[in-house]
């Protein structure tokens, strides 16, 4: 079938991107000299955004549960993994485990921490629908931020720093590929049809023997897990994390990627994540091109306004997103 093939290509594309990125930075001894730190920063950010957007798409796009708290799960993952490497990293690194193993375990720990948070939030709040769920998840995001701001062992308002920079191209894009693999495989399976059925019509789904709560919680917990992994990557890339970095604006950014890419289209969401990471940076360059007329430079200087404007135009002309098959707004039966 068509869909099966496109899935295969997607996985192949991911694998090749992993190989390519590992060529750029093969752990300690990169094959190709590393890019300058600015490009490195943008590209790692891109990979992390892909993980966040693809995992949120599982919840918001495929299962139709509008979550606005993805940055909250990212925060749980970031702080859990940072705390793991900070408190156990050196001890383990000096002992039986290599630093890489410690890092991977910390990422996994961050993911599991976020998944547990996802379970705790999801089970009671997934009874709610639409706007109400959005508000509850938004509230959760703010609570997590508030808790961290007051947690002295996590650095409170000062933020948490001192992590070793473990995050490389390889790990970022390997995690992105894994996220895509899991989401694509899940969506093209019996589970995926369950997600879509829940999104389309919950009452009919229940009547067809689908445990809607179970499916929603699975999507929510898996989404949170990958957000946690993304948080872990972020923490070990920036080497410093601050609660304000995980506020609801961050959640909005991810939601925008999902909506722009097209709810329920993994390819679209990947492209939107890449586009929205690169576009503001690109506009930064445009502002600096001397050859351009003065007014154009000044327009480009206000790049965030331009960026917002672009989003508005896109939503007006293509409300279903770049790759969405159907309208982003779900109709009521």
């Amino acid at each position: 079938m068509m869909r099966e093939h496109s899935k295969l290509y997607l996985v192949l594309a991911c694998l090749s991107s992993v190989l390519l990125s590992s060529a750029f930075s093969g752990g300690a001894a990169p094959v190709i000299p590393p890019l300058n730190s600015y490009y490195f920063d943008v590209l790692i950010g891109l990979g992390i955004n892909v993980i966040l957007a693809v995992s949120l798409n599982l919840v918001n796009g495929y299962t139709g549960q509008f979550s606005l708290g993805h940055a909250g799960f990212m925060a749980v993952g970031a702080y859990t993994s940072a705390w793991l490497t900070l408190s156990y990293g050196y001890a383990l690194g000096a002992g039986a485990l290599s630093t890489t193993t410690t890092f991977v375990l910390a990422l996994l720990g961050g993911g599991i921490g976020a998944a547990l948070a996802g379970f705790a939030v999801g089970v009671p709040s997934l009874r709610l629908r639409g706007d109400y769920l959005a508000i509850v998840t938004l509230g959760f995001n703010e609570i997590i931020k508030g808790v961290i701001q007051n947690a002295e062992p996590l650095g409170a308002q000062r933020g948490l720093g001192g992590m070793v920079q473990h995050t490389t191209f390889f790990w970022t894009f390997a995690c992105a590929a894994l996220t895509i693999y899991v989401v694509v495989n899940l969506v093209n399976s019996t589970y995926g049809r369950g997600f879509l059925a829940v999104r389309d019509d919950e009452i009919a789904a229940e009547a067809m023997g689908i445990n809607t709560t179970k499916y929603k919680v699975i999507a929510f917990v898996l989404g949170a897990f990958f957000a946690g992994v993304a948080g872990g990557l972020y923490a070990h890339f920036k080497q410093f994390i601050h609660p304000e970095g995980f506020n609801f604006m961050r959640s909005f950014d991810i939601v925008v990627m999902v909506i722009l890419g097209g709810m329920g289209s993994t390819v679209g969401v990947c492209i939107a994540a890449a586009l929205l990471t690169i576009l503001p940076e690109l506009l930064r360059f445009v502002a600096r091109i001397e050859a351009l007329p003065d007014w154009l430079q000044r327009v480009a200087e206000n790049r965030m306004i331009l960026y917002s404007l672009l989003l508005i135009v896109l939503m007006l002309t293509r409300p279903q997103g770049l790759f969405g098959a159907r309208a982003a707004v779900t109709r009521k039966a």
Partner: protein
Amino acid sequence: MSAPLLELENTTVQFGGLKAVSELSLTIRDAELVGLIGPNGAGKTTVFNLITGVYQPTAGRIHFSGSSVVGHRPYAITGRGIARTFQNIRLFPSLTVFDNVRTACNMHLRHGISHALLRGRSFANEEREIEAAVIDLLEIFSLAKQRDLPCRSLPYGDQRRLEIVRALATRPRLLLLDEPAAGMNPTEKVELMKLIRFTQEKFRLAVLLVEHDMKVVMGICERICVLDYGKKIAEGTPTEIQANPEVIAAYLGKEAADA
């Protein structure tokens, strides 16, 4: 006489001050075709929602093949063998004809989520089994040609048929049909009557049918139960119901009685 498949005993449901269904007792035996009729707002769809667990009764009992279904979630009740269709068609609009039916097979799956991720052998086998079963069903109901179309693009009558097929995919013992003839033209109605009869015989199902079209109800039901304001006002064979003065006054009107 065999033990009843479905048994409602003094079932009542109250929404605030309104008794939508009041002390209703109704039994359906294996492979029996029963009609449920009554004026608009009499509580017919509410009865369906009670049986399928969408609403919980405030009083009374509902037993299905020997054990109570009260307090169970709708998906669990479907799992025990009660399937339904909806008054206003509720197919999954973003899925194809094929996937609509396939989704209804989900509850029979035995493989876990890890198999779906790793695409193991049990996943592939079950997918193939389900695919074959779905194609069989679609062929029986002559929808196989449209299998890859989005379900919304089907003509109205086919969508109704597809909803029945989807309900059958859950392998029910009792099928609840909520106004399947609504919006159909006379030819389609005749087709539908044949289809319901055929389905009931082929799958050895009990069917509970809510319908306003008296030709359909009188034509295929073995027994009819009449509701008015949530209360059962009559029960009997089509001939008995047609002659019942209370039913004529409440619902059928003089014309139907003469017909």
